[in-house]
Structure formats: structure tokens, C-alpha cells
């Protein structure tokens, strides 16, 4: 294999040997990592001997392919439309949806890896049973055996406890296709169960926007081109929303100024005009300081606040009494004159907008910090304007039937009798039966370990995990694994043998979007994408609703009437049943089949949210002062709230990565070519003090746990901060950031999503060099 080293760094080294510039070239162009060029062990590893032929390809001419419309459902701002090219039943390649001006004919590094996702040799192909969790001792079983074991457990629990509250579901964003809410539907169809509710992602900000405006509702991102001033505050679209960059670039081209506020000099930050390195969690203090300066300078749009706001005068009085620009700037770590200048520029620009990222609300004060930023946008009169707005997200286009989700409990089901709130941000209340005397038991999705440890009467006996890599993505991994020991049976539905599947008793193989029928919308842009079945499901894989249907058949055979989920479903018919006239009207289509020709965009009265300035708050106004917030235990005004006290010497940030969407995609061998291993990013000064040089193996540790990985030195991170991206797994590497992230809650989230969020970025750790 020695000669194959030439396929990478060695190759360039050899080639450059004949040039005068070789040394400077090597010095200047750091290789993306020698490991990226390591030889593979064989030809493109085939899916398996019996699998379809997926190997080297070339473009065979447009006439050679059948095309299908698909959508990327992986919890991303961009939620891209995909055109799939299929030849002889094989997904040969994918392209971006050309009829969507947002996707604009191109995908991202993750989306283009989809053919490898489908045909990866690592995919789970059959139901399997693990003898000893974490042992890797898997044996193939039939669907009949798997469903017999699971249905047996369900009936056993009902018999033992008199209810199914001992069966719990944790599910989140692995696939946001609308039919995938059939997982919740499956649980409902069995009776009253335990649900892990809420969202780890964005709940504090959702509540904040609900307190302020009555809903979370953002402008069309495509109207950012009209903005004269853009503050990207705690968002990194260069990694997490690559298709939004073109609108920011266009705004810049038309003369807009772009300021990026982030603890880290991100890839987005270097594309702006100005970057502010802020202390994590200081965003509220900074927004208050900017607001104070606007008040002092008479730059508040008082007419707007008087006409459209509630409680502005009280907010101003609070700021005058409690906030100085100097204090707020110091909290953020920024020079006073800079804060004043940008506040003035922002107020002078018309329209001006702030993109509020999800990262900045993952703090113990994250929700109230979002409220302070919302208020800054409102008091400059920028809410409700095309090109303006406090942009966070929206669920405006999600008005489907949730036909798969809404299932009745079997007759005679017994459940929980206490009060419960919403079951997540997508719970529109359509599934709730107000007349039912019982309901589901709800647990905090963000404290799965603690909730299972604490659960009694009944304990969690059977845990169903779908669309979620809990052990990789939930908080305090060690606690979760310990809690799982209490659970009698764990069933995971997944594509790959990930850290969650490692801890399961039974794994059920599921489908990629290309083997599925569903429909997708975004929480950022306003496009609607059909997802057609482009290829037959490989091996024995089934979609979530097909699994529910099969389980229903087995249960009803064993105990008639024990499950209401429809049997013998047709996946396409189930997709069609999610559409309604409201969706058709909103998107200006007459049938779902129109979407086979391309994507459809919502027909919006304005590109701006709240363009009629009729807010969904109790007062109908923008509520600088929210009584609901006060009732829910927060301050009525977006007052300053301190961040979390440090519990270790260095701040630990674990944001989203470039090469993965949470834990998905980064495990593929194609992705490893570009992103060969996880790293911790350390400021050179901090590293120097610890005797750490670039490439050293280090231990990062705190009271929650520790990880070992290589260090990369960079002044993109502040000296008091360590950064590692949120996920990276392979068979050879057990890296997991949630060995270091505890489950402390953020301030808000419970109001609209059922549980508070998690203070993911209020974490601390120390670092030391260890032997490689």
C-alpha cells in the first residue's frame, strides 16, 4: 500500500519537489489533515454482497436517469429540496432543488453525502438483538421475532402496571418529515404512555418570542437582501445555514453593513464587516447597553413603541435606573465606544435586522437575553418590516393534518391524571382530547437520565427511541447510561450503529429519505418540499409509520383492540393524508402532485412577519412588558439576568459542526475524508501555559466527565474558552461531548415546548496534556 500515500499530502509533496515554491507552498497551504489521505482498505466498500451495485460512477447524460423529488429532513434551517437521479433502481447522485430560490440548485457537504448514507456498508440492514448492552454482541433476528418481543413487553407492562405509563418515548429531530410524527402516533395508539417532551434545541428563544410577540415568527430569510444593517447574533450560517449566506452577501453588495456577534471568530464572522468577540451569556447585558445608548441619544422610535408596544415606558425606566452603557459593555467585554457606534448605526439604518442564533439562548439566561434583543429590534421600529425583524424561526408553514400523529388510545386505556403542558414546539394541540380523563405522563426531554432515575409508579420499563441519538446528543452521557440500566427493554430505530444503538436491546432498521414518502417544510425559509420514494427500501428497512403499522398488526393479533394504529398502511397514502386545504391555499397549489414538478413557496402577504403589527400577545401589542412571562416565573420586562457561575477554569463551548447535522453524516467514510477526527480548539496562550502544542493529545475534564482527543491551537477562540464540535462518532472513536455537558436547564422553554431548554453553552472544563 506504500504507493497509495501519493493520493494525498504525500502526492503534493512529491509533486512540489520539483518547484522552487515547494516549501512556501507547504508552509502556506496546510494540508486538510494527513489522515484524510490515508489509504482505504479496499475498493469503495460495497453495501454488501447482496446489495445493489453502488460503485464508481460518471455522469451518463440526463436521459439516463429517472428523477424524483426529495427533501433533507435533518433539522436544519435550510431543509433543502433535493432532485434525486436514479438509474437501474440505484440512487446515483443528488442535486439541489432548482425550483426553490432558497436551495437554488445546490446542497451542502452533508446533502451531497446522501448517496453514501443510503449505500453505506455501515447501515443497519435487519432487525437485530444485542446480547448484553454495549457488548456489540448482535444477532440478526426477523421482524416477527423483534415485534413479538416488543409486543410481549408492552402487554406484560399493561398487565403488571394496569397502564402503559411504563413505556416511554424519546424522539426528536432525526427526521422532521411530517409522517414521522407517526412515532408519537404509535405511542398514542397503544394508550397513555410516558413522553419525553420539549426540545434541546431552541426552546428558551421560542418562549421569549412568544412573550414578546405572541408567537415565534421570522421574516422570509430571502428578504435579508433588503436590509441596510444586519447583526448576526450568535448564529453561524456559514456552517449551519449555508444557503442563507447568499442573501447576506447580496445585502452587503447593496451597501448593508454586517456585524457578527459571537464568542468565537466563526467562519461567518470573517465574512462580515465587523466582528465582536463577546463573553458567552452576556448578550442580554449587551442589548440592554445598546438600548440605553439609544435612549440617551434620543434614537428610540418612540412613535412605534407607543403605537405598537405595551410597557415600553416601564422598560425605558428600568433601563435608566439599572443599566449604563459602560456596565453593559464591560459585561460583554467590549469597548464602550464600539458599542455606542454600532447602536447608533443600527438605529440609523432602515430597515435593520438581527438574526438571533440558537446558540446564544443555550444559557441559564438565554431566554431573557433573546427578549432583550427582540426589544432592541422593536424599539428601533424594525419589527414587522421587510428586511427588518428579530429573526429566530417560525412554524408558520407547519399546518399539516398530523394524521399519522393523531391516534386515539384504545378503549379502556388508563393513564396519567395530573396536569400536562405541550409536548414540544410542534404540538399544536390538535392531538389533545380535552374530554379525556387521562393523559400521557410527561418528562423533560433534556433530563432523560435524571428522569429515568427518578421515575416511579411506574418506572420506565420500555424505552422507544426514534429519530434521536440520545446517548450522543443528550446531556451527561454517563448519567444516561447509568439510568438505562433501570430500563427493562430499550428499542432503537436507526440507520447506523451509533452510541445510542450500542445501548439498545433491539434495533430496528429504518429508511433514508430516498426510501420514504413524506413532506417537509422548514422553520426558517417558506418553501414546501415533497419527498418521494425514489428507490425501494433497502434490505429489511421500514419507515417509522410502517413499523407502527406492523407492531399494531402483531398486537391486535395477540390482544384484539390493544392498538389503534392503522394496519397495512400505504406510505404514500399516509403522506397524502397529511395535506389539507389550508396547506394547499397557503402554498398556492391544488394538489400534492403539483409538488412533483418542483417546490412551492408560501404565498405571504409580506416577506415580513407581523407586517400588520397585530401581535398575538394578550394585548395585541409588542409586549416589552409581558404578564405571562411574570406569571411563568420570569421578570415581566427583559431585565438583566446573570449567567451561570463558572465551575471549572475554562468555558466549554460545543457548537454545531460543519460536517454534520448533530450526529448525522459525520460517521460516513466519505465525510471522514474531509473531517478525519474530532479536535478541541485551544487558544495558543492557554495551550502554552499548559505545555500543549498543536496536535498533542489532551484530556478535557470537568465534574461531569472527561474526553481525550487532539488539540488544535487557534486564536479563533478566546483564551478562557475551549471549543469542540458537538458530535463525531465512528467504530474507532468514542468521542462524545456530552461526557462534559451537564443537564442544567436554561431559563425558558417550558411555556411553549413543555420543558425548559438546556444551558449547553454554560459549561466549563479544564485541559491537560496526556500521553498519546
Amino acid at each position: 500500500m506504500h504507493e497509495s500515500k501519493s493520493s494525498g499530502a504525500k502526492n503534493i509533496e512529491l509533486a512540489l519537489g520539483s518547484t522552487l515554491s515547494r516549501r512556501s507552498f507547504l508552509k502556506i497551504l496546510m494540508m486538510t489533515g494527513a489522515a484524510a489521505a490515508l489509504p482505504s482498505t479496499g475498493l469503495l466498500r460495497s453495501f454488501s454482497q447482496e446489495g445493489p451495485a453502488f460503485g464508481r460512477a460518471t455522469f451518463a447524460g440526463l436521459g439516463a436517469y429517472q428523477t424524483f423529488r426529495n427533501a433533507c429532513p435533518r433539522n436544519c434551517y435550510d431543509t433543502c429540496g433535493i432532485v434525486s437521479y436514479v438509474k437501474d433502481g440505484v440512487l446515483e447522485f443528488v442535486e439541489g432543488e432548482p425550483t426553490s430560490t432558497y436551495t437554488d440548485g445546490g446542497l451542502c457537504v452533508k446533502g451531497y453525502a446522501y448517496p453514501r448514507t443510503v449505500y453505506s456498508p455501515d447501515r443497519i440492514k435487519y432487525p437485530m438483538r444485542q446480547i448484553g448492552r454495549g457488548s456489540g454482541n448482535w444477532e440478526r433476528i426477523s421482524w416477527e421475532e423483534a415485534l413479538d418481543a416488543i409486543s410481549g413487553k408492552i402487554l406484560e407492562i399493561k398487565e403488571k402496571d394496569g397502564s402503559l405509563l411504563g413505556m416511554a418515548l424519546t424522539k426528536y429531530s432525526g427526521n422532521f418529515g411530517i409522517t414521522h410524527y407517526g412515532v408519537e402516533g404509535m405511542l398514542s395508539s397503544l394508550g397513555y404512555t410516558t413522553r419525553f417532551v420539549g426540545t434541546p434545541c431552541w426552546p428558551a428563544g421560542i418562549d421569549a418570542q412568544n412573550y414578546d410577540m405572541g408567537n415565534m415568527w421570522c421574516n422570509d430569510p430571502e428578504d435579508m437582501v433588503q436590509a441596510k444593517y444586519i447583526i448576526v447574533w450568535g448564529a453561524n450560517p456559514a456552517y449551519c445555514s449555508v444557503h442563507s449566506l447568499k442573501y447576506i452577501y447580496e445585502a452587503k453588495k447593496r451597501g448593508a453593513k454586517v456585524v457578527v456577534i459571537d464568542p468565537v471568530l466563526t467562519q461567518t464572522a470573517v465574512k462580515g464587516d465587523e466582528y465582536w468577540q463577546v463573553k458567552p451569556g452576556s448578550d442580554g447585558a449587551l442589548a440592554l447597553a445598546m438600548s440605553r445608548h439609544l435612549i440617551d441619544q434620543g434614537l428610540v422610535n418612540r412613535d412605534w413603541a407607543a403605537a405598537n408596544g405595551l410597557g415600553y415606558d416601564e422598560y425605558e425606566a428600568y433601563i435608566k435606573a439599572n443599566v449604563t452603557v459602560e456596565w453593559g459593555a464591560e459585561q460583554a467585554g467590549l469597548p464602550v465606544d464600539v458599542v455606542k457606534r454600532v447602536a447608533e448605526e443600527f438605529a440609523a439604518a432602515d430597515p435593520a435586522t438581527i438574526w438571533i442564533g440558537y446558540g446564544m439562548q443555550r444559557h441559564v439566561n438565554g431566554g431573557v437575553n433573546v427578549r432583550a434583543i427582540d426589544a432592541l429590534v422593536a424599539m428601533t421600529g424594525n419589527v414587522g418590516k421587510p428586511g427588518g425583524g428579530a429573526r429566530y424561526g417560525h412554524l408558520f408553514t407547519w399546518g399539516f393534518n398530523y394524521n399519522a400523529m393523531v391516534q386515539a388510545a384504545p378503549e379502556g386505556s388508563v393513564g396519567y391524571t395530573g396536569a400536562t403542558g405541550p409536548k414540544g414546539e410542534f404540538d399544536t394541540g390538535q392531538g389533545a382530547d380535552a374530554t379525556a380523563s387521562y393523559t400521557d405522563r410527561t418528562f423533560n426531554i433534556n433530563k432523560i437520565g435524571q428522569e429515568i432515575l427518578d421515575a416511579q409508579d411506574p418506572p420506565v420499563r420500555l424505552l422507544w427511541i426514534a429519530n434521536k441519538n440520545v446517548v450522543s446528543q443528550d446531556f451527561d452521557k454517563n448519567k444516561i447510561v447509568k439510568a438505562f440500566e433501570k430500563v427493562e427493554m430499550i428499542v432503537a430505530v436507526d440507520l447506523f450503529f451509533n452510541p445510542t444503538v450500542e445501548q439498545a436491546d433491539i434495533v430496528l432498521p429504518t429508511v433514508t429519505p430516498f426510501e420514504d414518502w413524506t413532506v417537509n417544510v422548514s422553520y426558517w425559509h417558506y418553501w414546501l418540499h415533497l419527498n418521494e420514494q425514489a428507490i425501494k427500501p433497502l434490505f429489511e428497512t421500514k419507515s417509522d409509520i410502517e413499523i407502527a403499522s406492523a407492531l399494531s398488526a402483531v398486537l391486535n393479533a395477540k390482544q384484539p383492540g390493544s392498538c389503534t394504529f392503522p394496519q397495512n398502511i400505504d406510505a404514500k397514502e399516509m403522506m397524502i393524508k397529511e395535506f389539507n386545504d389550508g396547506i394547499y391555499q397557503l402554498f398556492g397549489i391544488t394538489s400534492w402532485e403539483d409538488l412533483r414538478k418542483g417546490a412551492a413557496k408560501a404565498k405571504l402577504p409580506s416577506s415580513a412577519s407581523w407586517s400588520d403589527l397585530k401581535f398575538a400577545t394578550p394585548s395585541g401589542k409588542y409586549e416589552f412588558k409581558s404578564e405571562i412571562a411574570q406569571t411563568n416565573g420570569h421578570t415581566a420586562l427583559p431585565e438583566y439576568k446573570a449567567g451561570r457561575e463558572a465551575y471549572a477554569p475554562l468555558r466549554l463551548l460545543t457548537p454545531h459542526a460543519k460536517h454534520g447535522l448533530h450526529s448525522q453524516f459525520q460517521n460516513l467514510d466519505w465525510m471522514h475524508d474531509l473531517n478525519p477526527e474530532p479536535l478541541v480548539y485551544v487558544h495558543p496562550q492557554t495551550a502554552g501555559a499548559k505545555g500543549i502544542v498543536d496536535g498533542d493529545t489532551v484530556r478535557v475534564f470537568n465534574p461531569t466527565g472527561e474526553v481525550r482527543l487532539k488539540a488544535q491551537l487557534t486564536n479563533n477562540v478566546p483564551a478562557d474558552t475551549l471549543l469542540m464540535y458537538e458530535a463525531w462518532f465512528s467504530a474507532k472513536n468514542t468521542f462524545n461531548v456530552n461526557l462534559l455537558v451537564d443537564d442544567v436547564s436554561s431559563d425558558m422553554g417550558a411555556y411553549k415546548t413543555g420543558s425548559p431548554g438546556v444551558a449547553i453553552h454554560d459549561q466549563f472544563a479544564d485541559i491537560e496534556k496526556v500521553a498519546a
Partner: protein
Amino acid sequence: MSKRYAFHVNMALCIGCDTCAMACKNQYHQEAGIVWRKVYPVSEAIYPHRDRAWMSLACNHCDNPPCLEGCPASAYTKRDDGVVVHHPDLCIGCQQCLHTCPFGVPQYNPHTKKAEKCSLCWERLDAGLQPACVQGCPTGALSLVDLNTFDDPSAIQFPPGFPHRPEVGPSTRFTLPEQPKIVRRES
């Protein structure tokens, strides 16, 4: 007059997202370890922030391609439109091209025992489509240009860090990255 196709790499727009590199694998399914387009980080000596400016490079489809000139098997040809094509059926796997290319473009595939490289998606060009990498670029940083008509005044042929080899005439053109005003924490 025929075209002279070239890549224009606008580093001011490039976010180093690797979409172009994966768009290529999506089209051709190269084995793990083989990547025809690579997105190289520009060193801090040139751009002061690590991993924040990038040079997306594949074959430069040179005017005087050394791979072609040095190939003992005549496995390389250059089309009228400038595309340098490698013909695997003629390649004998001698790796001469790996040594003669000043940019380290051809890669040896140990499985096929042949060299290989970016084809500028000539099959797609002939079908009236953009190269896969260009089609995929979400920011407009990577584009296909015709050097006979291309007149972007910001474009240069030899940016810092790219080997200065005018005699081989690499066709790729570059626009340099910009830097924001940076306000770092005082405490």
C-alpha cells in the same frame, strides 16, 4: 473561437464548507481516501485566522499541462475547450504525472492501480450543465469561466500560497479573501 474553460475561486465568498468536494464525490463515488477537489485552509502567514480562508482546488487544466507532456502512455489529452482529460483505459499507473504536476493534482488509486483526477465534469459540460462542484457551491464562490471573455479585475492567477508556475499556465483564477474589522474582548 472555442472556449477556454477555467475555475474562478472567489476566496472572498468562500466559506470553506467543503460542499464542492462532496458534490464531486456525489457524482463520481470516489473510494474513501480519494478526493478530486480539496478545500485547503490558507495559512495564518497569509490570512491571519486559522481555518477561516480557503483555497478550493481541483485540476487547474493548464495551458501546457505537464501531466500530459510527461505521460509515457499518452493517457492525457487536452480538449479544444481547455479541459485536460485523463483516460484510465490508457493509463499504465506509472505515476509520472504525480511527479510532474506542480500542484499535486493527479492521485494514484491503489485499487485501480491507475492515476486519476478532476475531469472538469466534461460529460456534464457537454450536456450543457455546470461542473458538479460549481453547481453545488452555495455562495457563488466557485464558478466556471471562459478565459476568452473573463474580465473580473479582482481575479489573479497566482495568489500567495499557490505555486508560481507561469510556464505551465494554470487556468484557475482567484479573488483574494477580505478581513473584517475585529473587536476582541478587553476582559
